[in-house]
């Protein structure tokens, strides 16, 4: 099952086993017209590899940036993106939805 693009966890576990530093971001809650449901995942490595998605492409950049912080600190983050959030406008969640994304390190 690891050969299909939705199985981000297996991809991340493979990267971790190969010695990469890996963070996983998971959509934990959505409101409105967010394109990806809760449970959608994205994996990011310190070396810049990326797999999966947590939106239609609007917030992946910001999430990857946050993931780097979690990789450095080891501390998980619960990110909030939405129309009421300045940062979300900045990164352009143009679909009008709201999502929460949990970012953690694979230790």
């Amino acid at each position, binding site marked *: 099952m690891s050969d299909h693009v939705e199985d981000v966890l*297996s991809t991340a*576990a493979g990267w971790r086993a190969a010695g990469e530093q890996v963070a996983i971001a*998971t959509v934990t809650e959505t409101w409105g017209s967010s394109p990806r449901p*809760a*449970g959608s995942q994205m994996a990011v490595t310190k070396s810049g590899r990326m797999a999966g998605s947590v939106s239609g492409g609007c917030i992946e950049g910001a999430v990857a940036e946050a993931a780097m912080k979690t990789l450095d600190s080891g501390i*998980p983050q*619960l990110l909030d993106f939405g129309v009421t959030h300045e940062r979300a406008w900045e990164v352009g969640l143009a679909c009008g939805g709201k999502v929460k994304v949990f970012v953690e390190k694979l230790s």
Partner: protein
Amino acid sequence: MTPDLLAALEKARAAKQPIVLATQLPGGEQCLLPDPGAPAAVNEAARAVLESDVSGTHKIDGVDWFMHAYNPPLRLVIVGAVHIAQALVQFSTSCGYATTVVDPRRSFASDERFPNVTISTEWPDEAMEAFKPDSRTAVVTLTHDPKLDDPALDRALKSGAFYIGALGSRRTHAARLKRLSDLGHTEEAMSRIRGPVGLNIEAVTAPEIAASIISEIIAVRRGAPLPPKSAPKTTPP
């Protein structure tokens, strides 16, 4: 996530055991559920999440838990290792379906034609007995040969498969329904069979037909409204 937890999660998934990764928010404490040591309400929420296959955040006793459902992959049985099947396995695999191709004709069901796919060269009735389709299984027959398609459809109708599709024109399908009714299947039961198979997108080539089939499987799985299949054209007297 700790290495131990990741290993336990990967082990459960490899064993095709339905499991929930529960994360307390915002702190990030994690555990796998169901677990006899966890509070009853937490286990109950985990079971509901697996049953609905919808991950989400649930507040239990004032604590936010993100419950991530990891169910075993959906399954697809394709009867008939034909050209359309070669295209369909590519779509179904990328959509996450664990796919098995059944065809006793070894020249069709060859590894060369179907690399990286589970192949069964048993007769469809035996293959279906062994496969045990359940509510997370789709069944598609593509051989056009009643000797192969009918036994598979008969077994599929007796199973909880969420999708049953059969290739063939409306006329072929009407003849097929007659044969299945002779086997004792009621009209209501047979209405589960999507025939002619696939969404009507005027598909012509094998990959296009395969795209129409995987789209219909997804539509049924996700509960999208579908138009009824039209009745066979009758020839004027």
